[in-house]
């Protein structure tokens, strides 16, 4: 957690500040230095008291004073052009990792998993649960990388199309991973009641009418023909 938070602050504030001071003739004023150190305090507080308000609100907001004091930290020198797009992608990826380690921790007592009662009981059954954060992280990175790899070559010539591509990519990460993988699959994986309801529904399937079946076959046939024409033309 500390490592991911420090990486995020370094990418967002410290490296741009170092670049501005060292190579672009900027000056490190005392208020700016204090603002650059503010996320460290927020990060230590979030690590000391793992609460969502500290991790998901205080720590991200603690970056704002430095960004307001020196607009160059988020200016075109840092985020302009193709390399700027890569920098922005890195910041977004580390920010997503920060949210992931904050919301999906495996250790009891952290921000989203309260400490269990101190009564000794049977150890919990280990099933597919450990797969959920790994699949969510891999799919997030995979979808975002798929869109970013397409957007990067077009960033210099057509920034509008590249931005739109990245926007669609971020939206698809949110919809696919947030709503489907974590929402729908995680619900069945982690909630015993949902699992029981789904099992009951599967044991008593609704009667399938022949017309529905023929409609499904017809639509699948049309879809296959259209797909084949599309790729073979």
């Amino acid at each position: 957690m500390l490592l991911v938070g420090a990486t995020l602050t370094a990418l967002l504030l410290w490296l741009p500040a170092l670049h501005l001071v060292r190579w672009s003739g900027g000056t490190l004023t005392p208020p700016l230095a204090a603002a650059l150190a503010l996320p460290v305090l927020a990060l230590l507080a979030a690590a000391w008291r793992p609460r969502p308000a500290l991790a998901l609100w205080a720590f991200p907001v603690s970056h704002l004073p430095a960004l307001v004091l020196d607009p160059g930290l988020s200016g075109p020198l840092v985020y302009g052009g193709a390399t700027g797009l890569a920098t922005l992608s890195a910041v977004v990826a580390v920010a997503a990792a920060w949210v992931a380690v904050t919301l999906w921790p495996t250790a009891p007592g952290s921000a989203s998993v309260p400490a269990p009662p101190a009564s000794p009981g049977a150890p919990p059954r280990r099933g597919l649960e450990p797969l959920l954060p790994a699949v969510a992280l891999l799919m997030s990175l995979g979808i975002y990388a798929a869109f970013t790899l397409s957007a990067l070559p077009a960033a210099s010539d057509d920034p509008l199309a590249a931005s739109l591509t990245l926007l669609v990519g971020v939206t698809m990460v949110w919809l696919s991973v947030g709503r489907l993988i974590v929402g729908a699959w995680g619900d069945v994986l982690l909630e015993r009641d949902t699992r029981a309801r789904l099992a009951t529904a599967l044991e008593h399937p609704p009667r399938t009418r022949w017309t529905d079946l023929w409609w499904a076959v017809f639509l699948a046939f049309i879809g296959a023909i259209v797909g084949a024409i599309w790729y073979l033309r």
Partner: protein
Amino acid sequence: MLKSLLLLALAALLLAFSLWFFKQSGDLLAGRDYIAGCLHVFVGYSTIRAAVELARLSVVQQARP
């Protein structure tokens, strides 16, 4: 148990295919072919939805006594 693993493997396969569709849609969107890009996004999203349904079935299958 075998059926559960098979469903999980099929779900993983569909997830991998969805990434290919997203790569195609990214290429089309970056090339200003917006309608084809949106159609590929829709196909990728539907593939992920199918994969998640298979993964849900796998969990229920594994939980059966």
